[in-house]
């Protein structure tokens, strides 16, 4: 349904998205994950025809977003990051207007509107001014306008940002249900959200796609490293790191610089380290042996399970850590 080939987008001299290619098939729910400023919103704006790409080709439902922009826009429901609402209209008036500018005729709106209001559970607020709604209900109104005209493709930019936790859960459920009948591209910077809703995750950072996988596979793939927290007494950092790197199953070793750990270690007089090792080999054993052979005091050795959040951090901050 959505096909992006070698798409780049610059804002003046600044590249926002660099050579991105991916495809979203009919019926797929794809999560678009990345930190703020990674290029998620820009990519979505290109897909929705709001802004043209600087380079590359983007088609939605077979229509090019530049040359057949109107056709693309007819097939898309879009929820931008800041939910665009007319605060001085009632929910019903707002949705009716949105339907009309999407090309729906009067009877279609009449027929469709109650269903959509029901779907997003806005029934009791249908005659309330949009400006009086709480943030969660505004979000639902925004979702309602995106699905009103029965679009083939739904594009949602950070649909749960800034709403309270209970409403977040409800909104996620709503989106999951919508995914049953729509092709969907959904952006988020919250991992559990994406893994809860989406069957496929694209991770974007600094304008480039850095991973494209199922949420489960993504974590499995990143299990290429087993992370081990180690504290030793009597070892200098460079010396320790070098000795660790000599071990064949160790991928990398570095000082643990997390503030809480550093404070504790200064108080108790040991040095904290983080070691990444290959999984499924007896790395902990070899590490422990090496530490003891060097005559250091081993005070802690804990293998850490990697959460999705860490995978995400790993994916998007790896380069910065190396610098």
């Amino acid at each position, binding site marked *: 349904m959505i096909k992006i080939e070698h798409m780049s987008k610059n*804002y003046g001299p600044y590249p926002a998205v660099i050579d991105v290619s991916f495809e979203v098939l009919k019926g797929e729910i794809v999560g678009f994950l990345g930190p703020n400023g990674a290029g998620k919103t820009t990519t979505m*704006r290109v897909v*929705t*025809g*709001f*802004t*043209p790409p600087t380079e590359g080709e983007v088609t939605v439902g077979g229509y090019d977003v530049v040359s057949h922009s*109107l*056709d693309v*826009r*007819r097939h*898309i429901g*879009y929820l*931008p990051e*800041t*939910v*665009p*609402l*007319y*605060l*001085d*209209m009632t929910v019903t*008036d707002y949705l009716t*207007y*949105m339907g*009309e*500018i*999407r*090309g729906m005729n009067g009877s279609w709106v009449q027929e469709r509107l109650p269903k959509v209001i029901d779907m997003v559970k806005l029934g009791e607020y249908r005659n309330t001014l949009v400006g009086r709604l709480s943030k969660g209900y505004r979000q639902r109104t925004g979702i309602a*306008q995106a699905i009103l005209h029965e679009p083939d493709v739904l594009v949602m930019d950070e649909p749960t940002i800034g709403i309270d936790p209970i409403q977040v859960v409800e909104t996620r459920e709503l989106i999951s249900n919508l995914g049953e009948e729509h092709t969907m591209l959904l952006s988020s910077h919250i991992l559990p959200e994406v893994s809860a809703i989406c069957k496929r995750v694209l991770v974007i950072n600094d304008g480039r796609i850095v991973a494209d996988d199922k949420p489960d596979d993504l974590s499995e793939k990143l299990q290429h490293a087993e992370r081990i927290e180690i504290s030793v007494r009597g070892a200098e950092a460079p010396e320790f790191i070098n000795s660790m790197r000599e071990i064949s199953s160790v991928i990398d070793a570095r000082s643990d610089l997390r503030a809480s750990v550093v404070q504790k270690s200064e108080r108790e007089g040991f040095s904290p380290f983080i070691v990444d090792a290959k999984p499924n080999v007896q790395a902990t054993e070899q590490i422990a042996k090496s530490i003891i052979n060097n005559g250091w005091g081993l005070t802690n050795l804990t293998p850490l399970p990697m959460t999705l959040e860490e995978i995400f951090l790993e994916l998007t901050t790896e380069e910065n850590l190396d610098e």
Partner: protein
Amino acid sequence: MRFISVIAIKEIRTYFASPMAYVVSAAFLAITGFFFVASVSDAFAEASIRGYLAGAIFFMIFMSPALTMRLIAEEQKLGTLELLLTSPLREFEIVFGKFIAAFAMTLIMIILSLYFVLVLFVYGDPDIGPLLSGLLGLTMYAGATLAVGLFASSLSSNQIVGLVVGSGILTALTIIDFVSARLSGIASEVLNAFQLGASFSVFDLDSFGVAEGGHFADFARGIISVTDIAYYISITAVFLLLTVLVLEARRWR
């Protein structure tokens, strides 16, 4: 066409849902009423709407941008412009729809003020020619000033910027004869050709003037000239086109 009317109807409803329409109408009626009364209340005054017209076109320098300042700036501020531009709408449909809404509001105000004409017919014997040409001119003048105001509104997400820029452009076109009077030859003539029509001599209680070299002078006198009509239509068209271009350019940023 359907989209244009959808947008126009929405905007007209928004005008009536906010105090804006009522405040501006009240101010328009009060100010034009003042000029009308002042111009016909002398014992031997001419039974004409000259004072009303002069007052109306002067006031429109500020009223038109005030009516249009919200139209596009607000969409940018609320982010709804992103929705409009990702709907299957063309930019000109958005711009036309909004222009028509503002124009309709202005027409309603002009129609409300027509009781002045009724008063003239009851108490005097007005010349019908200048009356009709004056109203025609006023309508065209309103269109031109609204187009300038709409353009100003498209420039930023701040309504006040829209108001100031819009009134600024219209004021510049109004006082352009101050500049042209100090020039000579072609330059002076070219500048004069852009004279919008209103004049500060409207505050002169003996004449209630419009700009003598401006495009409204003939309308006020009862003459309908092609040049004047072409001028107002051109200003309207050019500024609506510029507004469309500003919206299109937004895409390419």
